[in-house]
């Protein structure tokens, strides 16, 4: 399934957002996710099903002003 993850085209097998994060090797609790521009809280990632062409954002803490 083709997805756009953080702006990059990516082929993934994971059927849900939670499984995509595991497939990509994300660990820890310091990132937040959005699916097609809508925030997906951590507890809802397992139920967030992915479809062809979906846009996923995975954001982590960064320096800011």
């Amino acid at each position, binding site marked *: 399934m083709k997805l756009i993850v*953080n*702006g990059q085209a990516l082929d993934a097998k994971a059927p849900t957002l939670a499984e995509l994060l595991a497939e*990509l*090797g*994300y*660990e*820890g609790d*310091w*990132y*937040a*996710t*959005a699916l097609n*521009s*809508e*925030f997906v*809280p*951590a507890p809802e990632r397992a139920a967030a099903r992915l479809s062809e062409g979906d846009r996923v*954002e*995975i*954001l*982590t*803490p*960064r*320096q*800011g*002003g």
Partner: protein
Amino acid sequence: MALAVYGTGLSSRLMLGTAQYPSPAVLAEAVKASGAGIVTVSLRREGAGGESGGRFWALIRELGVRVLPNTAGCHSVKEAVTTARMAREVFRTDWIKLEVIGHHDTLQPDVFGLVEAARILAAEGFSVFPYTTDDLVVGERLLEAGCQVLMPWCAPIGSAKGPVNIDGLKAYRAHFADIPLIIDAGLGRPSHAAAVMELGFDGVLLNTAVAKAGDPVRMAEAFAQAVEAGRLAFEAGPLEPRDMAVPSTPLIGRAVFS
């Protein structure tokens, strides 16, 4: 008197950004030297693993300061609102420095989008710190939207120009007499910070002026002293400028030699 925002007392009137420092170690030392109780942070994309973000977050937590996540770089209400919701989960705070940027070059806030986003986020329980201009009507709209603090710029972000519209800032302070006002953006030197604090602003938020200084740690300390001096001066009641010379030494009792 201590400053309180959203029911939280602040130990310092200086808030510091965490971007553009030469190294994480210098950032940590600068935050300590500044005495800031609040630092701003952001959320950005990171590749597989997210380890870099994790390391930065660990560094910030070790500093023992409160974080104020921002929505920097967001150019629409939708982007800003989604980013704020994501930040709340990661940083575990309802506080959000709300930026809705209206122009790529000037980084001027889109005040219409700002008010709309502030209304949405305040209704969701966020404590919104809006990055705004010194426009009084926009300030009023932000308060109506649920903001309890206003953060007007004094010059464009990163410009280091210092207060370019002193009369506008005076009017802002007078108009919002009972609202915590924090100058956000445009400060370049400690004297700029002192100047706006002397006008009665409750605090300042700055980043580039410290991070890009030759010695960020010493500059952080310089800003801390300037903010404190400016506040003290405001509370002490500064003399207003006068058009004519006024002798400081008494005229009565002077000798006459001719």
